[in-house]
């Protein structure tokens, strides 16, 4: 168990079958605040890209009158990246296998975001 104050929030996510890792990321600069990742995942780089993508989506969605993004999901051939904004300009990020229960991960991300905030 990590000593990070976000350990509980990350535990919620990584306990879901098919989740390869989870991170708490600072939205402004894309730095990793806390992480529980499987070996080999480049957390820092992914965090930076997740923060940047969040910013782009956020601006596009607010401009389109859809309100700020509450959840986004990048679907890839061999897995997915799921992101939920939390309080204090943080993001909670999950990296998953392709066969994961996306609905369940989304719910845990939302719970984790609440716990992290």
């Amino acid at each position, binding site marked *: 168990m990590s000593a990070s104050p976000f350990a509980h929030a990350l535990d919620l996510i990584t306990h879901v079958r098919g989740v390869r890792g989870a991170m708490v990321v600072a939205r402004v600069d894309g730095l990793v605040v806390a992480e529980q990742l499987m070996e*080999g*995942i*480049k957390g820092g*780089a*992914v965090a930076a*890209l*997740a923060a*940047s*993508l969040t910013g*782009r*989506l956020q*601006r*596009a*969605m*607010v*401009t*389109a*009158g*859809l*309100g*700020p*993004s*509450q*959840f*986004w*999901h*990048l*679907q*890839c*051939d*061999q*897995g*997915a*990246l799921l992101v939920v904004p939390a309080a204090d300009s943080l993001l909670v990020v999950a*990296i998953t296998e392709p066969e994961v229960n996306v609905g369940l991960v989304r719910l845990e991300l939302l719970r984790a975001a609440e716990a992290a905030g």
Partner: protein
Amino acid sequence: MPDDVKTLTAELARDPQSLVFLRLGELLRHKRQFDAATRVALHGLERHPHQADAHDLYARILADRHDYERAFDEWDMTLRIAPHHTGALKGLAFLYFKVGDLAQAEAHLQGAYRIEPDDPSIVQAFAVIRGEAPPPPTLLPVAEPEPLLSRDAPPPRDSVTAFPEAQVFAGLEGAQEGLLLLDAAGLVLGGALKTPDGVDVTEVVAAYLAGVSQEASRTAKLLGLGGWRGLSAEGQSGQVHLVQPTPDSMLLVVRDRSVPLGRLGMLAQRAAQASRQWLERQR
């Protein structure tokens, strides 16, 4: 105007460190020679990266070219260097007005007004934002031939004019206002996007989405997840789904929250198929 391009160019050639690039860039911008104006502004920024007016000049050129995201960044930088730069404050007010954020537009104009209360363009802009006057030619510091402030009059969209949305998404649900086909640089190929209030935000949203495809690809690659197939996002009052019909294009589908994300994905796939066929016909 006493300056002409030739004279100023010669002056800049004689002294590349000179601030004359500001006048030359502005003159070229006036003449709508945006490529040349951009080169001059970037030349100046290379030599004077902390010169607020240089960032302001570049921001105005970018805004003229409808590259609002980068214009925003440049005006933001201008204000970091010179917090009382009225050109940047008016520029940001213009961008906020353009996307319908009237509160932020007014806040930035208030900032400009506190610094230059006698500037008639600020007073006029207040009237426009508050709906008390029709849009003047521009909120930008220098008058433009094109009415940039008018949110009702859509900016020139040559590509869309050439390829009307009906041709791309004919027969698809929401073809007129919830489907948007972009190229890799964020230029609109077809479709349109309006806010729930009916404001056309096609160009601005397209600008914000430029680069999403590249970043999604890099993220997927870094994670060893192969290629990306789609990106969906939920907002407070609507949701979006992005797909890549072809490697050099991107399709945005927007719907309200009543449409399940799964159905949105299916709709996006149908629209992507239509886009692929349409793009193929254009080649």
